[in-house]
């Protein structure tokens, strides 16, 4: 395949960025999108130019490192996949592909396509945990049976990889889907219930402090989420938040 790539280049957080054209040849369908970028980078290095910087690590859709806005969509045109799992067979010979970083005020660009998603970490630091000692003196794991359905729902919420696509997809750059997934995971388990009120209040407050926008129930986040995190989590978080505020 022959492709024309339009890629966002930005020297650092302070510099202004711009789109640049990179024609590329010899791309095969069974390459992943990131392998296609590897090929481009190898070419750039051989020409003595600086390769395009992008985040990645596991390359199997689980670490949440990779990002990339591809033709206007986070993680590209395919559904339920991360950029590292997107394969070039989804594109056609001669295509022009526009590649940009995820855009959101709370996700500043570090360089080229690399963004700073540490706001997500800070949201979790204010309450995304169960306050239990790590000393190993806990009760037997089967002492508290948990309904399979709740355990499964909690698991599904917990499969969020923290990639930030939901934020990038949202016209308000809201982090509701992400935050609600975290809140839900704990709210659904007996272990997490005890601190539920404080947790949801703290996490929502931090989310606002980080500069994420408001949720206007557009649902773009769910569509673009590579892990299929459901909007139900947002509803659950809203309920938790409301009742937390009622309780004060």
């Amino acid at each position, binding site marked *: 395949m022959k492709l024309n790539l339009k890629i966002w280049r930005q020297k*650092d957080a302070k510099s202004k960025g711009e789109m640049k054209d990179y024609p590329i040849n010899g791309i*095969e369908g*069974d*390459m*992943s999108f990131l*392998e296609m970028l590897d*090929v481009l980078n*190898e070419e*750039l*290095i*051989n020409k*003595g130019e*600086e*390769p395009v*910087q992008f*985040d*990645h*690590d596991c*390359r*199997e*859709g*689980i*670490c*949440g*490192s990779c990002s990339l806005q591809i033709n206007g969509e986070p993680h590209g045109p395919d559904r*339920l996949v991360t950029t590292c*799992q997107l*394969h070039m067979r989804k594109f056609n010979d001669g295509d022009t592909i526009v590649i940009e970083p995820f855009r959101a005020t709370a996700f500043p660009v570090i360089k080229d396509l*690399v963004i700073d998603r*540490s706001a997500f*970490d800070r949201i*979790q*630091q*204010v*309450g*995304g*945990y*169960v306050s*239990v*000692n*790590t*000393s*190993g003196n*806990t*009760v037997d*794991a*089967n002492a508290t*049976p*948990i*309904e*399979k359905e709740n*355990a*499964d729902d909690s*698991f599904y919420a*917990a*499969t969020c990889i*923290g990639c930030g696509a939901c934020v990038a997809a949202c016209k308000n750059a809201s982090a509701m889907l992400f935050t609600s997934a975290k809140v839900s*995971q704990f709210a659904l388990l007996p*272990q*997490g219930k005890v601190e539920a009120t404080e947790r949801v209040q703290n996490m929502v407050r931090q989310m606002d402090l980080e500069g994420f926008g408001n949720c206007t129930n557009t649902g773009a986040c769910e569509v673009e989420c590579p892990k299929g995190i459901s909007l139900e989590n947002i509803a659950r978080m809203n309920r938790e938040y409301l009742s937390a505020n009622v309780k004060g």
Partner: protein
Amino acid sequence: MGKLDSKVPSGPLADKWTKHKNEINLVNPANKRNIDVIVVGTGLAGGSAAATLAELGYNVKTFCYQDSPRRAHSIAAQGGINAAKNYQGDGDSAYRLFYDTVKGGDYRSREANVYRLAEESANIIDQCVAQGVPFAREYGGLLDNRSFGGVLVSRTFYAKGQTGQQLLLGCYAAMNRQINRGKIKPYNRHEMMDLVLVDGKARGIIARDLVSGEIERHSAHAVVLATGGYGNVFFLSTNAMGSNVMAAWRAHRRGAYFANPCFTQIHPTCIPVSGDHQSKLTLMSESLRNDGRIWVPKRKEDAENIRQGKLKPTQLKEEDRDYYLERRYPAFGNLVPRDVASRAAKERCDAGFGVNKTGEAVYLDFASAIERYGKEEALTHGMKDADNKTITKLGRQVVENKYGNLFQMYEKIVDENPYETPMMIYPAVHYTMGGLWVDYNLQTTVDGCYCIGEANFSDHGANRLGASALMQGLADGYFVLPYTIGDYLSNDIRTGEISIDSPEFDQAEEAVRERIEKLMSGSGKHSVDHYHKLLGKIMWNKCGMARNAEDLTSAIDDIAALREDFWANVKVTGVADSLNAELEKAGRVADFLELGELFAKDALHRDESCGGHFREEYQTPEGEALRDDENFKYVAAWEFKGEPKNAVLHKENLKYENIELKTRSYK
């Protein structure tokens, strides 16, 4: 030799750990506040250690190269975590877990460490559940289990095919709690470049801020390395792209012995290589072998026709298929340990029965599982004479519930529907059993430098059974290191803060700067990947699934020559004081180019076959591994002496007081 004191406590095996905990020195909680610990790596091992150390009251600094601890490579673990809970009532016990692990590791691990691991395993599950880790549950609300290769009980806890993710998020949550309390200071996007020794003790590290390129000094009373495995020395492996040996190798150069580097696990169920551009290999969890049957065609013509696309696997009749694992190992069948399954696949493919274009793939087939489950479901739903279509539909649902995300992943990569046509798999480099040598306290041969998780060597011997790495990482981090390190730190309650303005820090920082400069000023002929790929080829062809003296000897020379070429001709573009992924890679590959040579040297000296190390010269007439306990029942710990070829061998003789050494048979 004097240095290799394993410090295994005396007394009966089952009492050693309790006795040791009772005897080692403790640090008063008020004094812990005055003690700093650096934890490099925030995977399961480092994350759990950091959280627990902070919980105990130490001041902890964590380092990882990713932008968040939550992205450490542990996140990718799919299958599950073992624990001797005996919830299933199938006769499991700490002793059995211990026994399976030692046997599975081909008797090259340390008895006392493994027993402790088995003992703590049950605790891990309790701890994780308390933290809100959503393990799979049965309808009754209790935890569900499955089984893994190499064992006959069901002791593996799991969260679909994403167990590592859920366990790591548990650690990360525990870390977050401590970050919020100010007890952990996280340094993300930071890479450890060197270990700093003061008066022979590990007292800090030199790190590079990967965003600004700044070189930083960090001091502490002790340094814990939890930096994972070095499988990426093969270029293609199931490891994350950034996985590296840098921290361990830098510590090795500063005096930490490197143990059993050649013990590398080749995992039998990975997605086969598709072409030259491939950047990594994807694992299909071994839990698939619980239900999937492995086969190749019985006749070469059929294999040939399949390779050419003239025949579909589903067209081949049952009697024309060779379920070679079931044939060769009737007792364990498809559930033989990884080293056995990998070699058997290679044997069939080498003999010409491979089923993909390159002839390097075998089938993993779910058709009979789908039928079996479908019939079961139909009956339990009161359908006495369900038709085939219904049975298939019901069966697929069961398989989807169990392995759905793995099937989806396979389909994304290969573009074939594994519910309809068997998956293709082939062995790939996966896990490294070798690593820094540690004693029973998990301390390396450098005082104050500890090593936990995949980065150390102690628990898995020559082969690792499935679902035991997660167990080891968490046992080390939550329950072992936090105790044992106290013994060492109890001598430091009056030391006070360690200064970073010492000649030792000056010297180490200078060395790091020089190295970076040297990398940036290479005359510039080839990219870093160019060298990494060449190294990977040498490793796979000459130090891979089967090894022989001739190949290993030439590998040593090849790697040394490649290393020389690398330093003369590598091209790293961009600048050092900025985010520069090429520079990061260059530093990592430079260390792989040294480790690779030591790897080959280790494999060459070990004149036996055991676990992941298969020397062609040492095999039985049936092609099974031939171990030599008389001469090689030891840990090979290498001391750095300049070039890898000059490394000096030290031996820790392994004593088996509780298990009789037997030929490993799964027949």
